[in-house]
């Protein structure tokens, strides 16, 4: 069975739960999810991961609006860092603003997903997303 290591950068515990749950239910993919509740902690985690190649996340799911350091700042730092430049980052946020989408892509986001309010769609989109990136990165 394929595996995918994901770093989920998300401050909302409920969203963390729902995303984890969606990913746990996948039949053909073992997803390990690490959670960073804000941008600073996410960057710390990624910096540490350089020295443990086996534990390095293969995909970052990034919320935009977070305390302390928001998603765009995280993106900026990641894209400035030579080692993390190739890391796929999918922005997964509640914002529907077209400007946010454009700005995220400009800052180097690999993709932008607006969290659907429909629970069923949320679940399936997360699952598809994981499936897609698992194929691309492994």
């Amino acid at each position, binding site marked *: 069975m394929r595996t995918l290591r994901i770093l989920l950068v998300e401050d909302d515990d409920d*969203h963390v739960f729902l995303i984890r*749950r969606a990913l746990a239910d996948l039949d053909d993919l073992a997803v390990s999810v690490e959670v960073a509740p804000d941008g600073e902690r996410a960057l710390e985690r990624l910096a540490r991961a350089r020295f443990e190649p086996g534990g390095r996340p293969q995909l970052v799911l990034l919320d935009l*609006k977070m305390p302390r350091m928001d998603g765009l700042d995280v993106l900026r730092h990641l894209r400035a860092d030579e080692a993390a430049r190739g890391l796929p980052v999918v922005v997964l946020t*509640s*914002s529907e*603003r077209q400007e946010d989408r454009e700005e995220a892509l400009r800052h180097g986001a690999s993709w932008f997903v607006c*969290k659907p*309010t429909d*629970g069923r769609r949320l679940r399936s989109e997360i699952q598809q997303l994981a499936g897609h990136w698992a194929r691309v990165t492994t």
Partner: protein
Amino acid sequence: MRTNGRQSTRRWRRGTAGALRSEALVEEAAAPACVLDRSGRIIVANHALEQLLGVAAGGLGGRTLPSLAYPPDEELANAAVRQVLSEGLDRCQVEGRWVRVFSRELVWGGWDLSLVRDRRGRPELAIAMVRDLTDMKRSEHERRFFQFMFKLIGEADSSHQVLTAAVQTICHFTRCAMGQVWLPAGGVLVCSPTWYCSGYGFEKLHAASVQVSYKLGQGLPGLAWAKGQPLQLDDIRDTGRFDRAVAAQRAGVREAMAVPVTGAEGVVAVLELFVTHERAGEPGRLERIARVAEELGPLVERRRASEALAASQERFQAVTEAAVDAIVSADSSGRLLTWNSGAERMFGWTAEEIVGRPLTVIIPARFRELHNDGIARVRRTGTSKLAGQVVELAGLRRDGGEFPIELSIGSWNGPEGLAFSGVLRDITERKRAEAALAGANRELERANAELETLVYSASHDLKSPMVSLLGYLEYLRLDYGDVLGPEGNHYLNRMADSTVYMQQLIHDLIDLSRVGRTGVEPIAVDLRPLVRAIAEDAGAANPGMEFRVGRLPVVTGDPVGLRQLFTNLLENAVRHGGRPDLVVVVDGHERPDGGVELSVRDNGQGIPAEHRERVFGVFERLEGPSTSDGTGMGLAICRKIVEVLGGGIGIQGDRGTDVRIFLPAAVTARWPAQELTAGVAR
């Protein structure tokens, strides 16, 4: 000229040798002369005297001197004769007015009476040699007439008083009983209320005159006005031409005269004069009056011109003094000529203090050089750049305080070259208001920016819990759907529906608040392909319905907003049309003002007239949330989109719904070439 042997000489009494000698002397004299007997009666008068006094030959025989005199001078004549014949004075002269016997004209005569004594030295006869002084006296009279009149005119305060004084003088010197002035006023002659009369009974004649007005050529005054010549009616009774004859006759009037007073600009007035029966028929009267009137015209005109000037100056003075603005004038060297009370209040200088001083006194020091350059340029070129313009400058008060002013400058060519007038307005208050407005605008911009942030936060923060809510609902259904049973699942579905609806509400609120604030540059948007694309989508989703797209223009605006506008309208039609075979037509036509009127109409159930305005409100729906989907904000968003473009939107239609959109000419770019086929999308 000799008169010896003339038949005209008569002798009443054969007298002494002295008497005979005297008679012979008189008869031969060229000058008028006569001989009086002791009682003062004329024994013999020569032809010259008979001519002077207007009698036929022998007509003076037996007459006394006083009986020939003009009544006021009778006593004078009597006294002279008495002194010579009764009191024995050898010589006596008397000057007086005499009445010509038949014509009743007046003549002036100087009588030189010499006493002839009999042998005993007693008075026997008197010889009278007469000098005709008429011409001399008349010219003297005329001189006094003019003198008197010009004195009155000199004392007159107005052109009107000049005419009144003239009428008075003319009446007095030409023995007219009544005189009045007619003035041209708007195409007619009207009688001035001031008049002159000597004697009584003329009030009704004047009153009758005041009540009428004459057009050119009408009535006696109107005729004189038309002809520009003096006219006379010798006897007002004889003619039907005199319309005020009854009143005139009651006043004892016989003659009427109308004399135009003519200036360079034409007739300025017509004098009307009346003569009573007793004074009628005096020859030369009209000519004398006409001569006076000739002199009057230029006088009246000049006086009127100065009156008009004074009045205009007075008006100017009144206006400038009443003005709140400062009104000042200066010559081309920049020296102040006038300074009104508004300027006194504004700058703190009185007119006495500042007139004659340079304008720089009221100009702040830092602008003075600029001002002096301007003055120098004006003197060089003879024109001012600023003339006719309104500029904002700073003014300097006497206390040194500066304040903003608005200055408009006019220029004119005065007697000493180019001069300027300036109207200065203290715009301190306006500047303050402008600053306050700018501050308010900044505040508004800040508030808008804040709102934008708020909307963003709301879109994220309100949505976030809903993502959670719906996510948990989904897992509740997945994990516990079996144990909840059908009713529990129904509740779950209702919860999910409500949450989705709430999400839609938030979404629309955000849309509404963002219309017109997205900062999108307006571009030319061809509405026809845009609406066709939407219609195709709608047609695909509603197979039973028909969507026709007619002629539509290219407009300048935000394409996203315009797409949303038509999407909302078509969606509304589908949602509220109430029939599966609905037909929706979208087209437009030009308005006379260059704008455009677009129409989205259907054959659905329509909207009752009383609700046609209400549906444009936020959260307004005609049915409850349960009967149809939609948040009730679609039309509110539409209205906002249209209003951002400067247009308007409303609902018409007796059958179905007809949404009319007006867009102004400013955003209507053009109409594409006429297309004959209306696009149909199914």
